């Protein structure tokens, strides 16, 4: 990664928007930023670090919060938004990364980190990357874990010592990051994929093996199924023969029973007819008894009806005789009254004496009454006789016996007819039954029923055997099919070959990884040693020796490890490691070095700077004049410096970046 431009806006001491052009120019990889302590050298390193990873550190390695990243001058002007824009290249790809922090919505004045929200965007070759790919892309081109190897902070050298501690977490993380950059992960991923493939192959092979084993079991099971089916078929056949025998017996019995059935039915009919005949006889006897009773009474009912005309005639005669008698009595009373008038000579009405004329008139009336009376025929004797006869007839009552008798006789006729018919039927049935032994027939029927029941049991048993046999057959076919479709020995062999091949590939991958790691470490070690020997001024130091974590130890010319390294040596070794990594595989990336030479003596300083200038495509040195003076630059590095900047104090919280004049044409 080559950082070509850094733009800071209201970030740390950099108020407003300021831009630093960091692009190396041809064979001049150095960009020098001069600043006294506290002017913002580390802030430039933090600007790059925050732009890339969203982190900034104090010299104590403590992280700086968003609120503190905001430039205080701008903050006081209520310009709360701040940000960093980085332009860099990786190979032929050009990137523009923008990270900005601004107050959250509804936050009028941010007072703490949480009051800010951060927005990150990135363009690659002029095209904006999707938001979710930005971090991935950064991690690809400049992993944070190895950022210490291109963002060198001389104040945090102890971080490099962690590499020397075998097995430490920090060392492991750094080693992984280094290896990722050096290309080891491609093989590691291949190994992981191969492990997955091997696991699948083992599983397949095991399954095939178990299937092979299962195949034998299945074969045995298949044999069992087929044998079972054979036995069931044999059982079914035996049962079928028994059923046939029973069926023949039944047919014989049924043919015998066919005649017997008729006889038995006749017998049943005969019994029924006899019962009916007996019932008819009993009913007939009852009817006869009731008819006898009715006949004993019917004479009076019949007499009542026969005498009805006579009764009416007598009633008419009595009426006439009684009317004549009444009329005669009325005339007699009038005659008596008139006769009394004549005898008394006094009018009964007015009480005066009757005159002669009146007496004559009465006499005439009497004569007339006498004539009238003689014309009326009366017969009291006859009347009394008629009335006596009427009284006799009134004692004769209709009793309904005639109606009852008529109905009973009708019933008797019906019953008699029915009885005759039944008797005839009984006689016919008896003739038909003559010579038939119904008892033996009943026994025959019982026997037939027993055979039928037994035959039914056998049929059910046979049906069950057939069903079971069919089931076994289906299971056998299914099993056979499964055996055919499933694993074969050929497939088993293939799966074995596959498993073995993958295992071999995995072994190769693992060996390759170890080989690659070993080679990489040796290569890093070689390059680091070369860099170290160029930078150190101690001739007894023979080489650097690398460990698993890419930690380097100094070994003297007698192959002894130099146990204690000075701060200066520490810095030289760290820079040697960085150089070795860059040479080995990190590519021709640039470096930004903050106060890199603070612990070095002038000889070392010169060696290192010259080494860096000739070994890296870009070196941004953030120095104070105590480390590297402008004169030193002019004197020793003029051929390597592209441009120089100065950080100028514009206020307590404000630094301005200015181009520095080195007094020579750069």
């Amino acid at each position, binding site marked *: 990664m080559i950082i070509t431009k850094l733009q800071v806006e209201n970030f740390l001491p950099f108020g407003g928007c300021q831009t630093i052009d960091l692009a190396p120019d041809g064979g001049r990889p150095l960009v020098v930023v001069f600043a006294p302590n506290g002017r913002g050298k580390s802030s430039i390193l933090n600007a790059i670090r925050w732009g890339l990873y969203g982190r900034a550190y104090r010299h104590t390695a403590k992280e700086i919060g968003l609120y503190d990243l905001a430039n205080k001058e701008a903050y006081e002007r209520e310009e709360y938004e701040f940000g960093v824009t980085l332009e860099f290249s990786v190979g032929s790809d050009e990137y523009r990364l923008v990270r900005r922090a601004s107050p959250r919505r509804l936050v009028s004045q941010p007072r703490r980190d949480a009051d800010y929200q951060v927005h990150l965007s990135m363009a690659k070759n002029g095209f904006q990357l999707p938001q979710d790919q930005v971090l991935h892309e950064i991690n690809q081109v400049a992993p944070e874990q190895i950022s210490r190897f291109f963002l060198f902070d001389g104040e945090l050298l102890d971080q490099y010592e962690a590499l020397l501690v075998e097995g430490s977490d920090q060392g492991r993380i750094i080693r992984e990051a280094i290896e990722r950059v050096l290309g080891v992960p491609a093989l590691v991923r291949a190994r992981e994929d191969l492990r997955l493939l091997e696991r699948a192959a083992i599983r397949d092979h095991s399954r095939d093996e178990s299937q092979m084993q299962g195949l034998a079991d299945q074969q045995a099971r298949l044999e069992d199924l087929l044998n079972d089916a054979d036995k069931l078929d044999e059982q079914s056949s035996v049962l079928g023969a028994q059923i046939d025998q029973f069926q023949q017996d039944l047919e014989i019995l049924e043919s015998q029973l066919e005649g017997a059935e008729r006889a038995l039915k006749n017998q049943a009919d005969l019994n029924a007819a006899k019962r009916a005949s007996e019932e008819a006889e009993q009913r007939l006897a009852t009817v006869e008894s009731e008819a006898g009773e009715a006949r004993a009474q019917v*004479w009076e009912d019949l*007499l009542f009806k026969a005498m009805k005309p006579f009764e009416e005639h007598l009633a008419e005669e009595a009426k006439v005789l009684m009317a004549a008698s009444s009329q005669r009595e009325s005339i007699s009373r009038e005659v008596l009254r008139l006769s009394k008038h004549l005898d008394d000579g006094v009018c009964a009405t007015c009480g005066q004496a009757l005159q002669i004329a009146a007496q004559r008139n009465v006499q005439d009336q009497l004569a007339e009454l006498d004539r009238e009376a003689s014309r009326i025929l009366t017969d009291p004797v006859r009347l009394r006789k008629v009335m006596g006869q009427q009284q006799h007839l009134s004692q004769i009552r209709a009793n309904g016996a005639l109606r009852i008798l008529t109905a009973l006789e009708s019933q008797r006729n019906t019953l008699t007819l029915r009885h005759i018919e039944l008797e005839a039927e009984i006689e016919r049935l008896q003739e038909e039954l003559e010579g038939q032994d119904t008892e033996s027939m009943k026994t025959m029927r019982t026997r037939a029923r027993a055979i039928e029941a037994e035959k039914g049991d056998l049929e059910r048993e046979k049906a069950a055997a057939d069903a079971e046999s069919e089931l076994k057959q289906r299971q056998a076919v299914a099993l056979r099919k499964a055996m055919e479709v499933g694993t074969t020995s050929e497939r088993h062999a293939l799966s074995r070959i596959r498993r073995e091949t993958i295992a071999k590939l995995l072994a190769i991958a693992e060996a390759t990884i170890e080989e690659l790691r070993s080679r990489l470490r040796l290569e890093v070690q070689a390059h680091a040693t070369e860099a170290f020997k160029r930078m150190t001024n101690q001739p007894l130091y023979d080489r650097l020796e690398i460990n698993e974590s890419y930690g380097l130890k100094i070994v003297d010319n007698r192959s002894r490890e130099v146990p204690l390294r000075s701060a200066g040596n520490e810095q030289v070794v760290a820079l040697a490691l960085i150089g070795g990594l860059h040479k080995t595989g990190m590519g021709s990336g640039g470096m930004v070095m903050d106060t890199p030479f603070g612990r070095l003596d002038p000889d070392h300083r010169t060696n290192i700077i010259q080494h860096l200038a000739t070994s890296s495509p870009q070196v941004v040195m953030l120095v104070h004049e105590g480390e590297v003076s402008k004169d030193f630059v002019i004197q020793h590095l003029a051929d390597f410096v592209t441009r120089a900047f100065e950080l100028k104090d514009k206020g307590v919280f404000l630094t301005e970046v200015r181009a520095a004049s080195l007094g020579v044409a750069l």
Partner: protein
Amino acid sequence: MNDQASNASVAPTNVGLSHSGHAILKRLKEQGEFREMADAYRLGVVLALALQVTPSQLKDKVTVFGVSTIDPHGKLRASIEIAYADPTESPYRLMELLADWGVKELERRLGAGSLDLRDVMDATSA
């Protein structure tokens, strides 16, 4: 006639019918057509009376029943007197003639299968 008139004036205490008529009575009872011979006797009298037959004199006679048995309330006697207003013949003597005819008619009808008195009813209704 005088004998008859004298017979009419003396109320008989027994009644009967011809021997053949008596034999029929016995058979009717034996055959179960009637429980008692008196039942058949009374019905014979009424049957003849209802059909208004003019009975002929008996050639022989056998006394079978007491009058109090056959006609305890005098209903038959009164009916005969009304239906046959013959002062020369005693109602009970007339009853014997009617009974003899009637019994024979009963046997004839029963011999045909049924007593079937519906025609008798039709005759009285007309």
